[in-house]
């Protein structure tokens, strides 16, 4: 059990290190920062001074070590556009993003999981079909299309809600619903198929043969098994809390991380872009780690490598 978790933690750290390295390579490949920051018309002396200041005249491995050490100390560079540390800028946008993504996550869970379970338990019923049609629709309509359609309907025609921006709780509704619908659809489909898979297993027949009431069979025997694969996809959604709303933030001009990313990419504010990428990667890795822990907790077959007692 202990070994299982140690291995997962080491793997998570390694993943982050790989992402950091990857970011370094991409940044170096994207051109000489001296040119992109000082501009093409800068004098050779100015360029050399810039390179010296930022350590770009050092050997590559040396640069890499410095870069790595800086990141370990949380130094992610300065924003070109706004001045100030890139990290501070990104962190200042996170609450706005979470204000959308957290309620959207709750909406996905609260709708997707019960709908999936219900559909599986009433397979091929009218409600199952309705859930699946809705799910496929919610899943295949891109979020910007859904967002724009909702804006058209509720903000422009009916004028019940603002078209975009921030400021009041009403501004939250459309972006949250836009984010939540697709995720709920994905989750409903996933949970349904996980449940169907589990309900076909021999141990469900055994539970029925034991005379256990169906509700208890579902609750005690089916759900704990169906939860195991479901944790993976929910973990992915959690890991996506920071980065999952880029499109929606743009559609609704919401001042979150996603919006910052779009603007920074356009302005080639590379340290901000890099900072966002690293945070997103860290969030993914962290949620993956939590998923691994939950797996070990939900599935005794994984966390227990001691099968010495069998013969």
């Amino acid at each position, binding site marked *: 059990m202990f070994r299982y978790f140690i291995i997962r933690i080491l793997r998570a750290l390694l993943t982050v290190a790989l992402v950091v390295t990857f970011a370094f390579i991409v940044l170096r490949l994207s051109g000489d920062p001296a040119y992109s920051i000082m501009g093409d018309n800068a004098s050779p002396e100015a360029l050399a001074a810039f390179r010296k200041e930022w350590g770009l005249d050092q050997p590559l491995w040396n640069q890499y070590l410095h870069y790595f050490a800086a990141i370990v100390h949380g130094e992610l560079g300065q924003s070109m556009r706004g001045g100030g540390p890139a990290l501070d800028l990104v962190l200042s946008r996170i609450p706005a993003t979470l204000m959308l993504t957290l309620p959207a996550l709750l909406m996905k869970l609260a709708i997707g999981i019960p709908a999936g379970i219900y559909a599986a338990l009433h397979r091929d019923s009218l409600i199952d079909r309705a859930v699946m049609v809705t799910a496929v629709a919610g899943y295949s309509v891109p979020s910007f299309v859904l967002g724009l359609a909702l804006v058209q309907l509720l903000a422009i025609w009916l004028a019940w809600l603002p078209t975009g921006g921030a400021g009041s709780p009403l501004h939250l509704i459309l972006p949250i619903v836009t984010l939540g619908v697709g995720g709920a659809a994905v989750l409903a489909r996933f949970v349904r198929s996980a449940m169907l898979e589990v309900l076909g*297993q*021999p*141990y469900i*027949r*055994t*539970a*029925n*043969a*034991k*005379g*256990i*009431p*169906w509700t*208890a069979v579902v609750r*005690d*025997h089916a759900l*704990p*098994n169906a939860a*195991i694969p479901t944790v993976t996809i929910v973990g992915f959604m959690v890991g996506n809390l920071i980065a999952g709303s880029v499109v929606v933030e743009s559609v609704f001009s919401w001042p979150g991380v996603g919006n910052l990313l779009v603007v920074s990419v356009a302005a080639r504010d590379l340290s901000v872009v890099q900072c966002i990428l690293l945070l997103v990667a860290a969030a993914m890795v962290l949620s993956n780690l939590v998923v691994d822990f939950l797996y070990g907790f*939900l*599935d*005794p*077959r994984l966390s*227990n490598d*001691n*099968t010495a*007692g*069998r*013969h």
Partner: protein
Amino acid sequence: MTVQHPIPAAPASKIPATLSPGRLLTIENLTVGFNGVRVLRGIDLTLARGEALGVVGESGSGKSVTWLAALGLLPKTAEVSGSVRLDEDELLGLHASRLNRVRGGRVAMIFQDPSSALNPVIRIGRQIGEVLARHQGMSGASVRAEAKRLFDLVGLPDSARRIDAYPHELSGGQNQRVMIAMALAGKPDVLIADEPTTALDATIQAQILDLLTTIRKETGMALVLISHDLGVVSETCERIMVMYAGGIVETAPSNLIFETPRHPYTQGLLAAVPPFEGAVERLVPIEGQVPHPANMPTGCAFAPRCSRHMSECEKIVPPLKSIAAGRASACLAEEGAQAERHSSPIKSMSA
């Protein structure tokens, strides 16, 4: 299915004398269809209290479906008709809450692959505890004590510690012991064992069968033992029922089925080996294929593979008729069957 068994001198056990006589379970004209295709074509049988009935037949002959249908364990899409009575109580169509008092209580069932028949994420002590709570009304510490007692009874080593084990921590044989303990937890009148040893290796197989026989003697419960293997059932059971393509073709006391198999299909099962010497128990392949349920012959289902088949065999479905005390066979050529019993009725043997 190539494990050899010693020939039993006589059926391994007798009906316990202390039991009240009479029928325990009656099945009448039980049919099962899936998507309009009939896979079980009218089964009639009775099971006496304490009796051990062996059910044999090739894969797909309907052995499992019969008993799953009887207990309402088939998928909802299955079309089931006929009658299944436990004493006088009809089980088919019974409301789930009443049926759940029978399942796991008066009638228990265990399955082929014990490792997948147990829930992988629940400790075995809790899995057996569910039966004790539901059918014995136990709770708290008495559940644990009784679970341990049952695990000891079925010979699960180190039972006190194993109560908290998960199925993957046990071997297949140990898991089948857990399944048997779980079946016994409801103090059943009949245990239906659907190929309980097929997934286990030979020594474990023999141990599990011995265990079933011992338990039956001690508790007086009836046993339905389903198997591909005529040897397995004849050692453990008093009476054998042979199934073919969704119907019963012959029933007989288990010693007689070897001496005088009456139905051409049963004879085919035994024919490759000379009777009265050597291992006669193995099912040997019979030339031809089992007909697919979707295009069953109009008359006798065995006709395409039967050397004795006559023109009426293609028109009339042979009914299961009593041919002697305790014996029945479903064959139109029944009169001629006895004289030729030592010659193979099969066109040609592929083994």
